[in-house]
Structures are given as C-alpha cells and as structure tokens.
C-alpha cells in the first residue's frame, strides 16, 4: 500500500506493507535511525516520536496509521547547528550515557515542556514513567528538564524585554 506522511516538515510517499510499524518505517525506509526500538511490549519508550504533536510509542503504531499525519522525530528537534533547549539541558546535566533511550526521552520531555513550561520533579517523573533508562538513574534526566525549563523561561523573559 501507499502511505504519505510528513516527517520533520518533509512530506514522504512510500510503498509499504500494511503491517509495517512506524518505527521500522522511520528507521528502515526513511533512514531516520535516531528513533530506536527496544522492546515489543510498549514498555521501554526508546521509540517515542510525536504524532500530530503528541508523544507516541512508534513500535505500537502502524506506519499506515500515520498516513496523512505529521510525525516529528529527534532529528527534527535541533534548529540547524543550534540544539533545542531540551537537548542542551541533557548535555549540560549529563542526562544521557549510552544514548539509546535519549531520543525517546527528549521527545517526551519536549512535549512536557510545551504543555507545562515549569514542571516539578514529580511531574517530570510522571511524564517519563513510561520509559526506561538503564544508565542514568533518572536524576540527571530530571535535572536536564529543569535546566531546559529555567533557560527557556529566562530566554522568554529576555525576548519580552
């Protein structure tokens, strides 16, 4: 079957099997390997991407279901050479080690900040609780999100002035 979707602002049309998962479409068909695959049961969240602005686990979405919709992946976060504040937060606060869960974490945390620009530690823990990181023990991820929140706020303040 033919599927057309917008990924990181670019429209793609491809011929695929109906059963193809979105994660495989992104990785194997479009070559966007920043999105990872880690379990078969929707538990680990390394495959999180945005579908129309909402974080979804792309291992449990058929590529066909994304047809006509907008997908955003980790490759679409940075603005050219400039990292998104959430990426910069992870860099500053050691929010990643092996980097395998990182793309999914970044997408979830970006979505959180868009909805809630000043999340508490508890709200951040809740937001990433559907995802597993085996390396960081989460504290530094929480600090990373707080870093991004604080820096976005001060940036907005500066712009307002």
């Amino acid at each position, binding site marked *: 079957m033919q599927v057309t979707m917008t990924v990181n602002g670019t429209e793609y049309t491809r011929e695929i099997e109906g059963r193809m998962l979105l994660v495989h479409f992104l990785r194997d068909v479009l070559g966007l390997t920043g999105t990872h695959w880690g379990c*078969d049961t929707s538990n680990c969240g390394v495959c999180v991407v945005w579908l129309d602005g909402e974080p979804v686990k792309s291992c449990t979405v058929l590529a066909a279901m994304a047809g006509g919709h907008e997908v955003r992946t980790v490759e679409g976060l940075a603005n050219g050479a400039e990292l998104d504040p959430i990426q910069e937060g992870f860099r500053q606060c050691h929010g*990643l080690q092996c980097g395998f869960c990182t793309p999914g974490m970044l997408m979830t945390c970006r979505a959180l900040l868009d909805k809630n620009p000043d999340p508490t530690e508890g709200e951040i823990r809740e937001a990433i609780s559907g995802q597993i990181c085996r390396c960081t023990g989460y504290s530094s991820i929480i*600090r990373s999100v707080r870093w991004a929140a604080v820096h976005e706020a001060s940036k907005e303040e500066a712009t307002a002035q």
Partner: protein
Amino acid sequence: MTTTQDTKLTEFEDNDQNPVGFGRMLRKEDARLLRGRGRFVDDVQLPGMLHLAILRSPFAHASIVSIDTSAAEASPGVKAVVTGETLKGLGLAWMPTLSNDVQAVLATDKVRFQGQEVAFVVAEDRYKARDALELIDVEYDVLEPVVDVRKALAPDAPIIRTDLDGKADNHVFDWETGDEEETNRVFAAADVVVKEDIVYPRVHPAPMETCGSVADFDPVEGRLRLWSTTQAPHAHRTLYAIVAGLPEHKIQVIAPDIGGGFGNKVPIYPGYVLSIVGSIVTGKPVKWMEDRSENLISTGFARDYIMRAEIAATSEGRILAIRTNVLADHGAFNGTAAPVKYPAGFFGVFTGSYDLQAAHCKMTAVYTNKAPGGVAYACSFRITEAVYLVERIVDTLAYELRMDPAELRLKNFIQPDQFPYTTKTGWVYDSGNYEPTMRLAMEMAGYDELRKEQAEKRARGELMGIGIAFFTEAVGAGPRKNMDILGLGMADGCELRVHPTGKAVVRLSVKTQGQGHETTFAQIVAEELGIPPADIDVLHGDTDNTPFGLGTYGSRSTPVSGAAAALVARKVRDKAKLIASAMLEVSVADLDWVKGAFQVKGDPGKSVTIQEIAFRAHGAGDLPDGVEGGLEAQICYNPSNLTYPHGAYICVVDIDPGTAEVKVRRFIAVDDCGTRINPMIIEGQVHGGLTDGVGMALMEMISFDEDGNCLGASLMDYLIPTALEVPDWETGYTVTPSPHHPIGAKGIGESATVGSPPAIVNAVVDALKPFGVRHADMPLTPSRVWDAMRGQATPPI
C-alpha cells in the same frame, strides 16, 4: 585525603575551554547522541543487506526428532534456512564458551533451555524472515527438565550435557577458597555464630539496546567485517578466528555505539556466529537483531547463587570469621565470562571490608535447563554476590547482638595502616580508609536523627527502615600472570599519536557502552600532555584501528586502559622532552614540565609548548641524536594488581503496612574510587548502579515454572525501575588514591550495582524488625514483603 560532598550538578560551567585534565567536562560523545546521529548496530545499512531471524526452542529440555524447513525455504523473500545439521557439516555446530565449556550454536541432538537456537532464516527483510520461522516444522521429544537447582545433582536427575563424553551428572565444578580448618576452629571458639540462607536470584542486565550484529563476508578477499554489540571487540576477534577458522588478520570487529552493556555484551552469542554463517552462505551482508524476549531468555543472565552464610563473632561485636557454602546455577552451558582461574569470579572478596581471623568458602556449580551465563549486570565478576553475602550476614549479626549496624561495621573495619591488606582469601587490597567514608555517609544521611524518627514511627506502628552497606570491590583485571580469558592475558594496549599541529588521537582497546570513554580518556591524556581534551580524539571499538586488549567489563577500563593512556602520554612526553632540549638548546636536566610546555629552569620566559614540539618532531631540520621523527607511542599495560574502590551506602525505606509496598525514600551513596577524573561521569555511573540496585532488591527476577518456561520473558514480566520507583540520589565522595595506578584512579562503573542491593534489603529488613524478621530474600515485592510480615518469608527459588 580530601572529603567533600558533591553539590547538585545543576548549573556548571562547561570547562571544555578551560582544560586541561581532570574535572567536570561535558561529554564529547553527546553531540551525536543528542541529535539522533549515534550509530548503533541496528543503524548499519549495507547495500544488498539481508535479515536473519532465529528459531528458538519452546521447550527447556527436548530431543530434536526432525526438522522440516521446506515450507520456510519456499516462503517469499527467503534466501537461506539453516539448521544445526548444516552447521555440523561445517564443523560449526558447537563453539567454545568463555569458561572453556562448549555451547551449541544451533542445537543438533537436543535443546537444553527454552529459547535455545534451533535454526535460522535469512530473508530480504525482518518481517519476511519472521514469517518463514513460523513455517519451520520441528518435532521434539520432550524430556524432563532440571529446573530446581537444589535437585540438579540428585541421583535420578536427568543428564543435561549428554554431549560431553562420559558425563553422568550435572556437575560443573567445585571451588574452594580460604582455610577451612582454621575457620572451623575460630567458629568453634566464638561466642556468637549466626547462620542465614541467602539467595541472590537470577537477574538480567537487559540493556535498552538488545544484542545484534551485521556480518559482511567478502569471499574474494576472504575478509570478514562484523559490526556487533560487543564490550570486547578484540577478544571477540580472536575467538571468531578460533571458532570459524578464519585467519585473524582477515577479521575486523567493529563495535559502534553500544546501547548499554552491563556485562550482557561480553560473551559471544550464537546469533553473532549465525550472522557470519548467514553472510558466508548467501554472499550478502546479513543483519541479526534479537528482540527483547530473545534478549531476556537466551543471553547472559547474572547471579543465581544460593548461599549459606555464617558469621562468628565475640559477644562484644568483634567479627572473627565468615564461612559460606554456595550452590551456583550456571544454566545449560557454562558461559560464565570470568578469568579462567576464577570460576566463581572474584567471589573470594566475600570477607568484605573487615579485619577477620579466618574465612572459608566452598562452592558447587551445576547445570540446569536454563539459559547460560552467570557473570553480567555490572557485577565486577561476582562481587555483587560477595558483597551482598557479607553485608547481609553482618546485619544479621547486628540483629542478634542488638547492636547498631553502623557501629558494628565501624568496629570491624580494616584500619588505614593495615593497607596493603591481604585478606584471608588471598586478595591484596591496595588502599582504603573506610571510617571517613562511613562517617560522611552517616553525616549526609543524618543518621542519628533518622534513628530517632524511626523510633517515633515504630511507636506509631509505621514501618520505616534504615539500611547500611559498606563495600570493597576488586576491579581492573589482570594482572595477566593470574588472569586470562581463554588464554588471552587481561592487559590492554593504548596508542597515542600527536599530529604536527599538536592535535592528538588516542586509540583504546576498551569499548564504551555509555561510560563516556571519549571524554574521560581525552582528559587523561590532556592531564599528562597538556593538550586540551577538545583537541584529542578518542578512537575505540574497531579492531582494525585500535591496539589489542581485553575490553570493557568488570569496571576495568579506568584501572587498566586508563593507566595505559596515562603511561603512553608520559612516553610521548619523555620524547617531547628530548626534542624540547634541542629546541631550547639546554640539557634535558635543565627543563621543567609545566602542563603543556617545557620551560628552562629558572627562566620561565624560555619555553616551548607541546604543540611546537609536535611540529618540530614532524618538521624540517635535525632532531637530537637517536630521536626518530614523529611524536607517537604505543604501550600494553599489564596492571600489577586490581584496584579496590570502596563505598558507604545508606538507604531509607518506608513500607506501607496495608499493601507491603516498599518505597525508597532516600539513598545516600558515598563512593571512593581514588583519583576522580570527571566527577560528572562518576556521578552518572553511581546513579545508574543505584537504580540497578532498586531493580534487583525490589523488582527484578528471572524465574522459571516447573517446566522450565522463563517467566521473565518481556519487560511486562521482568520489571525494571522507572523514574517513579527511585528517589533523587544523594552522592558524596572521599578520595583514597590507588598506590599502584599511574594516576591513582580506581574503577567506579559497578560500585553502586554492587553496593546498593544489600543497603536496600537491609533497610527493608530493618523496617520489618517489629515483626521479628531477620532476613528476607530479594526481590522484595509487595507479596514477598507481605509474607515476611506474617512470618512466612520464603526463598524466591
């Protein structure tokens, strides 16, 4: 020695621009990983690449009667279907394990654990390969499995390893350490003896990236390129040469970015070998990526020790001796990754951090119908089990003596003037100063106030527990005279080149799986050579462009390879000094090294930088007599001893009396890993390990039903901590440098995984004290805690 408490690392200046050497520095590897531009094995795409899927046994123990692959071969897009019989014809049906046993690559005679490899399909894509698996028809004759490890040596137990000539039981090895007679004598004379049966259940490292490989065999050149999820690319290359009979110089093993290892990616798995076979058979590149269930049911598990522990002491709380008897479950093949002379890894350090009069351990290892493995999950070669044993039994002693567990530990520590300290099992602890580490943890925790709070809560019927663990690890294997893996000495090479413009590249034999080697090793070279870390590229993971060495596991990268990096930089510096003396026209003796430059003694205005020296080393003009052009060096570092990091951990838990749910409220970790290269990375390593500890202590277990079905075969069944199960970690540190390591550093990668489970379990048991509970086994799930509260605690296996 300095003693400091870590501040919260929320706001720090990036000191990339303010080198040079040790201190917090943001990671070089993050640039690609944050942008989704990491390159993991499954990201490798080669022209014409095919996909491999493995058919696995649904049974734990069954004879293979027949395999019919005809329907699978006819399935669309299928390029090859291979069974054990085919491999047998090629002499590849069996391969050596890291413990000198053999393991089936594909089963021929029978299957010995659920999930064992039986056949494989190579097809155009991963979906078609999976489709074809379902069309392979295998007829099994189901045999009685050996699931209960306690019954593995029963006279009527089914024999698992019928492939081994004359094998008439399921015995793997007996092992012993310490002095039995002396230990028994001390026990007989002791005031107090406490005995406890302690189980360390089977767990799994479950890195977020599963295992996989891409094999690309070129039949014309006879050359194999293999991208694989390996923590030890060089050791793997040699083993492939042995297994597959390929000449070693024609094998290139590439470990690209690795999505977590934790020991899971040390062994060679059948899947890697099968991808090579698949590429040879089809003439195309072949990718194999296992799925999560395959990872959990077939790759290297960890622990699975049943330990009887005994401790002898005076009535005043002076610990005299420890002895233990261990029954070790090694699964269907002895695939333990440990130095050959150490079949139980470094379990011999079960004497802990205490000055004992005697110690003895007797161990029996057996085969069962479960997945092979045994050493994995950040265990520092079984030190997890050893530390858990000693820290749990010390707490039971405190319980019986009605002593505070902190006080009991403080009373029995090896004293600073006793180092280097030889334990009763023969380990030579290089350095340690335990009391300040313990005191700092107690101070950070507010120990006395916590005990007061606990007393108040107990009076109200609330369940609060405070658990302490103090550990000493032995990390950084070799030396090579004692330690080898399949004959390969545990040493590591390092090569350093300084280019004419003063930028450098350092090549390592070890391989990061997230530990940040590209940053840490640049910092080590920067510290020694004065070149900013940003100007130093760290190459690793590709056997064609890095020197030989045994790889990253057992917290050995900094102790071994880190030493190699420091020494190779010093070698380059020595040569630079000769060139500097010619450039400044003074004798070598008249030069001082100030980081990054040589200057004439007494005349700081007269100096040359390392960058200037580098250009001269490659430039026109004569060099001093006997000095070759270029500025580079290579060494192979053979450590003289292991390094012995230590730490004091305190855990505070609350237990809901209505649901028996354990909540880790606080966790204080004070680590001493000697010289600290990058505190940010060290803290990250500790945080990860502490989270592992919460998993093992409260959630994680690979269990089996009576038929040998694995009950932890997905992340819905094998529970790993999320952000909701762990607290905000509180870390601190002390610094006791290693006397034999060139920069005084010790390993840190596994300290927290080793030290945290006993702290958590001790806290839970402490909380349950009002119920008369002296011990309860992991994982302390609500139902198991509930049972313990009712005096019905049972072992998990």
